[in-house]
């Protein structure tokens, strides 16, 4: 399974209430890229990604997934291309058992019962919930329900995976598990887009960071570059990841994204 390209061309979107949520977003994401979207609450991040599977169509402008314009496609067609994991799992989960919830997606894509079950079990294993396959989703904790929602989308094996706040409420093992999913999906060549407020997760797992403020793209670059732009960071109400803040405070020129990179930088500073 390989990824597909994603394109937003001058996308504007207004909610029926009149709220202008997107104000001319243009963005191209290549097949297989790993992109994080960050920015303040209400900046339009969720609105933007919900255009990818046609929950929303632009008020003006176009959104293209692969060679398809979303406006000219059905929700079912887009769902086969773009797997979207909701921020709130309770908006997504509806079945009476975990396994049937996770099987719903593959079944809708035309997989038979056996294939759907195989895919669902594989996805539940990936997120560490195979033993809860027969549980009622509401017997699980919020963080577990979030991983059920993720499994439901993983089982669809879509070329594009969109995660809305995937690490929220996850403990250390949950964050590690989600980091592994991102790495694996990306290693298969699929496109991964994640909205996150977790800047450490963002720097460690994503090669490109898109910063949004008030419905516009404010910056779009590698984590090292984006987090060096103080003005952008402040306007977007985010902050650099812990290790970059520490390196900056110590007066080092480097902006380490991982603990290993930080220790390498420390060794370098010591050798000077």
């Amino acid at each position, binding site marked *: 399974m390989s990824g597909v390209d994603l394109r937003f061309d001058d996308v504007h979107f207004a*909610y029926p*209430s009149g*709220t202008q949520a997107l104000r001319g977003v243009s963005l191209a994401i290549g097949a297989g890229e790993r992109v994080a979207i960050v*920015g*303040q*609450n*209400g900046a339009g991040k*969720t609105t933007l990604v919900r255009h990818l599977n046609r929950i929303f169509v632009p008020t003006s402008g176009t959104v293209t997934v692969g060679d398809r314009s979303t406006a000219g496609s059905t929700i079912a067609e887009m769902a086969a291309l773009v797997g979207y994991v909701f*921020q*709130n799992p*309770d*908006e997504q989960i509806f079945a009476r058992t975990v396994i049937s919830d996770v099987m719903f997606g593959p079944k809708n894509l035309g997989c038979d019962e056996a294939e759907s079950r195989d895919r669902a079990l594989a996805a539940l294993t990936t997120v560490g919930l195979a033993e809860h396959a027969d549980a009622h989703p509401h017997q699980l*904790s*919020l*963080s*577990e329900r979030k991983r059920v929602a993720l499994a439901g989308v993983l089982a669809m094996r879509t070329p594009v995976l969109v995660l809305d*706040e995937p690490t*929220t*409420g*996850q*403990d*250390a*093992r*949950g*964050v590690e598990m989600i980091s592994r999913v991102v790495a694996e999906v990306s290693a298969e060549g699929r496109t991964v887009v994640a909205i996150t*407020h977790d*800047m*450490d997760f963002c720097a460690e797992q994503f090669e490109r960071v898109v910063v949004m403020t008030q419905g516009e793209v404010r910056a779009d670059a590698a984590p090292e570059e984006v987090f060096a732009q103080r003005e952008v960071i402040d306007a*977007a*109400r*985010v*902050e650099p*990841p*812990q*290790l970059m*803040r*520490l390196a900056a*405070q*110590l*007066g*080092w020129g480097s902006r380490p994204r991982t*603990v*290993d990179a*930080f*220790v390498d930088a*420390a*060794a370098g*500073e*010591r050798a000077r």
Partner: protein
Amino acid sequence: MITLTDIGYAYPDAEHFALEKVDLHVEHGEILGVVGASGAGKTTLAKIIAGFIPHVDGGELTGTVVVDGADVAELSLSDAVSKVGLVIQNPFNQISGAKYTVRDEIAFGLENLGVPREEMVERVAAAADLLRISHLMDSSPYALSGGQQQLVAIASMVVLRTPVLVMDEPTSQLDPAGTRMVFDVLSALRDAGSTIVVLEHKVELLREHCDRVAVIAGETIVAVGEPREILADERMPEWGIGATRFTEAARAAAGRGVVAGGGTLPVSLDEAVAFFQEDVPA
């Protein structure tokens, strides 16, 4: 202000205890941070302090919970609610669904308590101002982003001015600046005399704002103490809790012999700066 003695609890129809042998004391006017892996029992603890267990969830609760001098089991739910404000984990579920504007949503609890209109107007405005959502007062709660809804949920509890506030992951949906703002609000409320229990995964913020930290693992409290001591403890991974990158970097640097290490590892940015400045001259 809060004293839990030998608490045990099992949810209805559950085969295992969700919490066992829990003893905990929270002083008047302190912020206690509670950390633990998912499923360790943090939310259960929050509901016990707030009286939702056993009043709402049922199940079997043993031991005693005393809040502000009263045994919670003997209070009615409405009396318990007037002592403890509980901000639940999923803000989307805290919004009442009965109100069309943020202003009315924040006022909902006060209406139920029969607070006079003039006082209600003043308190709603003050709570919205504190959480910096005054500009959203005329919006529908459902037209807001996830983070904005979470601030409304927090304001709906803060407005009640209960002596105790229990907050179950109050910043899960918030951007980093919003997260810092909420923790600043908690510190301000503490300084004004509130007692606060906050359940969080964000260890850096707990270090900066809490007076003490408790760890839940294996259905009980395994450690309580000074935040830096607890949050830099080498058993953090074993407990299923993520240390800050500051602690991880210091431990890794010491492990590779880049720094001498020794002593308590840093948890916050300031502590990490001091730790590396001593060892790695720039």
